[in-house]
């Protein structure tokens, strides 16, 4: 069960918003790069985000480059889950590969900045504890849940030696 406070973002948050190109030289130093996470969308986000917090965004979150660093620094910053109307493809795959859960939810507009959420990934239930509303989302495919359980594909492959069964 995931529980945390909401940080709201709009539509089309790109990998350039998340991991700006001007910090390219920090890509081998993810802890430092994480201090700039989402800087071009919300300047002081990295300073204010707390461990366990949840990002709630609009459509097409993570569009743009293949930089896996984007998903990694969101996780390093302490974010426990990203909820969005939709995700860009490469980001979607990168996030599960590094053990960051993503949820697609069409009702994100009903969730407010600062709300407290409780998310049951396996059963596809999201509760907004602040408004009292409960939402159902398409449960994450089992294949990806297996990867999440091992905190990412690297650990999964190290442990099991092969991909989860499709």
């Amino acid at each position, binding site marked *: 069960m995931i529980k945390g406070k909401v940080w709201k973002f709009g539509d*089309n948050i*790109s990998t*350039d*918003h998340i991991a*700006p*190109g*001007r910090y*390219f*030289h*920090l*890509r*081998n*130093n993810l802890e430092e790069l994480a201090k700039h996470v989402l800087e*071009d969308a919300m300047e002081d986000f990295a300073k204010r985000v707390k461990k366990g917090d949840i990002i709630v965004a609009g*459509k*097409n979150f993570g*569009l*743009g*480059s*293949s*930089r*896996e*660093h984007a*998903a990694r620094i969101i996780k390093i910053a302490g974010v426990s889950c990203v909820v969005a109307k*939709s*995700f*860009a*493809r*490469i980001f979607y*795959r*990168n996030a599960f*590969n*590094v053990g960051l859960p993503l949820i697609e939810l069409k009702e994100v507009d009903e969730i407010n900045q600062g709300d407290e959420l409780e998310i049951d990934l396996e059963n596809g239930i999201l509760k907004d504890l602040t408004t009292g509303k409960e939402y159902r989302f398409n449960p994450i495919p089992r*294949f990806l849940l297996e990867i999440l359980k091992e905190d*990412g*594909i*690297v650990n999964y*492959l*190290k442990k099991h030696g092969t*991909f989860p069964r*499709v």
Partner: protein
Amino acid sequence: MGKTLAEKIFSEHVGKDVKAGDIVIAKVDIAMAQDGTGPLMIKEFKEMGFKEVKVPKAFLFIDHASPSPKKELSNSQKMMREFGKEMDVRVYDAGDGISHQILAESYVKPGDLVAGADSHTCTAGGLGAFGTGMGSTDVAIIFGLGQNWFKVPETIKIVISGKLQKGVYAKDIILEIARLLKSDGATYKALEFHGDCIEGMEVEDRLTISNMAVEVGAKAGLMPSDEKTKEFLKKMGREEDFRELKADPDANYEMEVEIDASSLEPLISFPHYVDNVKKVSEVEKEKIKIDQVFIGTCTNGRLQDLEIALRILEKHGKHPDVRLIVGPASRKVYMDALEKGIIKKFVELGAAVIPPGCGPCVGIHMGVLGDAERVLSTQNRNFKGRMGNPNAEIYLASPATAAATAITGYVTDPRRFI
């Protein structure tokens, strides 16, 4: 039921018939990473305990920050060279050029499955190969296992018919597609291009269109492999790599989009999203002042692009307030442009000709913008901060529009000069 190009290519790489929606384990022909994604790829490759590279063709490209402008980057690049030596993986280094262009020139064959830790790996679709961008860890898995899991995508059929007007180019076609589909219109899907406009189009221009498939969210942008493909491969000295490859006539498409090429005008993408597309003729009267013009990148840094831009520019000269940067996409493009006298003419016109590579497009070095400055670039992305400064504005257009704009100093329709 017939197959789309995506279904055909995946079926061959899985070893049985597969269809859109299937999750499959597929063998990969070509895998690569660049200096932005390569160091993490190498770290994860080692973390997973792989001892050898098992993908038939594996490459590392030092093209993003190249030659290196910072010691941290120099150290990452050093690590890539060491890995290359240790694992017998070819490393393309400073001066060689952009990964996607080098792959298209020298390695990609129709029907290949190409996976790159760079979102514009979809450029390979211009040769009828399934090229797709992935993260560093996914590419590390492919380096180590020679395969990975994929979802066979649904396909959107894009039929482009008619003849382009003078002054209108492949770049304008893909900007029109971005306008129609928006930045997420093809998420998880493949684009497949059809129509007589595509059939008559050179591979160089097809590469421009496939390159930007990811800008509408697509996993790949697939062109047919036909006589034009054969001509291109012959020109690159590898005619034997040709095979004809087309979708079956009764393939199943999720959606069909029709575009009349003859009705298109020069288009321009406004900041800060690629799908924010307008007609150049309609915005010209606003006299949008441009500080820098960049002609180059994996989208439009090929010989033909430089020729088109030069033909327009050389008659009128560059506006004194415009900084003009020209970047050939590869060493081959650079050499060809040198031999044809194109580079000399650009230098005489006042351009800064930079070494082959990604250069200004990725915002690390060369051509970083000042606050409130505007650039018109032939690249593929204009996200906020993309070129190194979130307080600058990036406009995207064809090499012809870029050249016309360099002449006047504001966004200008190239048809005035053709």
